[in-house]
């Protein structure tokens, strides 16, 4: 049984990783770049497998799913092989040069400090895996929303067989059948491979997305900043009890957090290696499309990222570049968006927040300033306290910053200072704009909600903040001072410069780093 599940998982992961080789031609042998590929590609592969499964549903091809997955993997593998062969012919530099340079850099002056922090990170990772395991043993079916929504949908889709369409019109509005299907279909796919609806499959996906999010944050910062920054950021995420507990709860919030982070990380890559520019934009588009296929909030995210990408690129690089990059981004998102549109228009019932939504009711709510005050208060208290774990909704969120919260990030930033690589400026502005716009969007969703405001805030706001939390940590650590750049990774910087000299065709040219505190 487990072998079949591992096979399904491997096909997804390999397909996603191959996709990154197709769209991100370099750096091929970078030791920091490889794990980034694995984590980005792995998550995208799982999401795209759920898309393939959905396309096969109406086509009646479910019996051939393993064959279709295998064929997709082989096609991507062949495409990757021929593309890499062509690129190798075109490239004049020996591929090993960068690997060598990076390896030397790893054993520079800061290696001891890095190893120490890596050891602490490993201890925290093991302890968090222990917490995850205990949470799973306590509630193997997950928490409330897992069996009310996500696993429930998976069960219906798996057990209904050919009659799968009927469940959407079944009148079970309380189970939110308008929610997108990435997570339920990933689970159904796993069940299809093993031949039964085991409770271990949803739990396996919960663990997988928790680790993918953690790994992506770690490797992205290792790649874009330094190893120490990567470890410290990952430790903040591990030190967030809500992240571990929500991961084990089998909700879709952690998968959404992963795809949001993947989108924002991928949009940083073009500035670092222009040869990856177009591919990174396409992959970012795919990741943001998968956000929309994971939760309804993902649609808002997709809209905001598209607008921010266009505006920031227009400001930084002009109209031509903005148009090109936005088109590539949308090209990546479009196939998944079509699936979402088909789902929303042909299958899903009306969303409970949109039902009975009229202009008169909307205007009345917009003019009710007591709602703004209530939401602002909830945003403030939850913003400081949400990291501290699950709340008793009868009591509501209490002010409790705990050990790890946004306050710790602010204090760390004050102590470490700000150090921004000039190449990252546009990306940082874009990421900050996206996160702030989403917060503003969430704020107005609450202003307009037809549900009882207190109930809606108490049951959802901490999860909405958790979805953004890995991206917020990423943003802070992309901004925070990384003195190992001058000390421990001084050698790394020098080696990178050496590499630029050795490989004139590549664009890893370092621009001056500005520092303000």
């Amino acid at each position: 049984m487990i072998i079949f599940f591992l096979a399904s998982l491997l096909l997804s992961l390999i397909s996603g990783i191959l996709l990154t080789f197709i769209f991100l031609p370099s750096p091929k042998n970078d030791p920091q770049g490889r794990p980034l590929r694995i984590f980005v590609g792995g998550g995208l592969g799982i999401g795209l497998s759920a898309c393939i499964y959905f396309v096969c549903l109406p086509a009646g091809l479910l019996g051939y799913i393993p064959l279709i997955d295998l064929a997709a993997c082989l096609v991507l593998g062949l495409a990757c092989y021929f593309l890499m062969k062509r690129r190798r012919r075109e490239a004049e530099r020996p591929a090993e040069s960068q690997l060598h340079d990076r390896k030397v850099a790893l054993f520079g002056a800061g290696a001891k400090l890095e190893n120490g922090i890596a050891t602490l990170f490993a201890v925290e990772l093991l302890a968090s895996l222990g917490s995850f395991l205990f949470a799973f043993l306590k509630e193997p079916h997950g928490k409330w929303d897992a069996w009310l929504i996500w696993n429930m949908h998976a069960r219906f889709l798996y057990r209904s067989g050919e009659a799968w369409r009927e469940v959407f019109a079944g009148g079970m509005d309380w189970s939110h059948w308008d929610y997108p299907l990435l997570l339920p279909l990933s689970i159904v796919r796993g069940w299809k491979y093993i031949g039964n609806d085991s409770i271990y499959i949803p739990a396996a996906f919960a663990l997988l997305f928790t680790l993918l999010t953690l790994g992506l944050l770690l490797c992205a910062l290792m790649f874009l900043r330094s190893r120490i920054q990567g470890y410290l950021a990952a430790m903040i995420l591990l030190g967030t009890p809500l992240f571990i507990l929500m991961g084990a709860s089998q909700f879709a919030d952690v998968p959404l957090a992963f795809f949001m982070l993947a989108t924002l990380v991928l949009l940083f890559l073009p500035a670092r290696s222009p040869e990856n520019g177009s591919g990174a934009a396409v992959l970012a588009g795919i990741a943001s499309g998968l956000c929309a296929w994971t939760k309804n909030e993902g649609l808002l995210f997709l809209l905001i990222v598209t607008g921010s990408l266009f505006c920031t690129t227009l400001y930084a690089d002009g109209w031509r570049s903005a148009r090109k990059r936005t088109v590539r981004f949308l090209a990546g998102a479009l196939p998944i968006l079509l699936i979402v549109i088909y789902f929303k228009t042909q299958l899903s019932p009306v969303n409970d927040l949109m039902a009975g939504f009229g202009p008169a009711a909307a205007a009345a709510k917009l003019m009710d300033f007591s709602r703004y005050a209530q939401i602002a208060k909830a945003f403030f208290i939850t913003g400081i306290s949400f990291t501290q774990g699950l709340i008793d909704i009868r009591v509501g969120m209490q002010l409790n910053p705990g050990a790890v919260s946004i306050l710790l990030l602010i204090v760390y930033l004050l102590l470490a200072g700000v150090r921004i690589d000039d190449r990252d400026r546009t990306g940082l502005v874009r990421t900050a704009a996206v996160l702030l716009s989403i917060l503003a969007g969430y704020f107005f969703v609450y202003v307009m909600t037809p549900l009882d405001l207190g109930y809606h805030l108490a049951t959802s706001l901490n999860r909405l903040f958790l979805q953004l939390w890995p991206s917020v940590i990423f943003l802070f650590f992309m901004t925070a001072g990384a003195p190992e750049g001058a000390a421990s990774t001084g050698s790394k910087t020098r080696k990178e410069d050496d590499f630029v000299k050795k490989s004139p065709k590549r664009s890893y040219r370092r621009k001056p780093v500005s520092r303000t505190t």
Partner: protein
Amino acid sequence: MVQLIAKYRVTAGRLLLIVLTGYAVLNLLWQQIRLYPGIPETDPVTIHEARIAQLRPLLPPSGAVGYITTVENDRIFAAEKTFTNVEFLAQYVLTQYTLAPRIVRNSPDLPLVVGNFIDGPPAPGFLEKNGLAMLRDLGDGLILYRRDRKP
């Protein structure tokens, strides 16, 4: 001098971060370990699922069945919305979770009706008012009804 102070500030920042994240991670693990012996051998969802699963062979493989419980049907969701009682909704949702792909309607107006009385019997006269006759008592407050007539 400025560089030296900056270096100490960064070291202090890192130490603070390592200590606090370490505390948070170990504290969570400790809480989970401490709670573990108090956790029942089988979790409530699995227990509820095993109980409801007895109905499966008695029901058609698809289609809809009704549902009744200790309180009136319209109070199941209302009680959850006001956080006064989430148990009735949880029991209803878990009944649906177990019996999928059959649809469990929150209503007594169907030919077959699942009675889930884990928290006690319904109000006197409720069954008669809805024309429900017992088809099978599976014990532990789980009863399958047949709707004989329209009330």
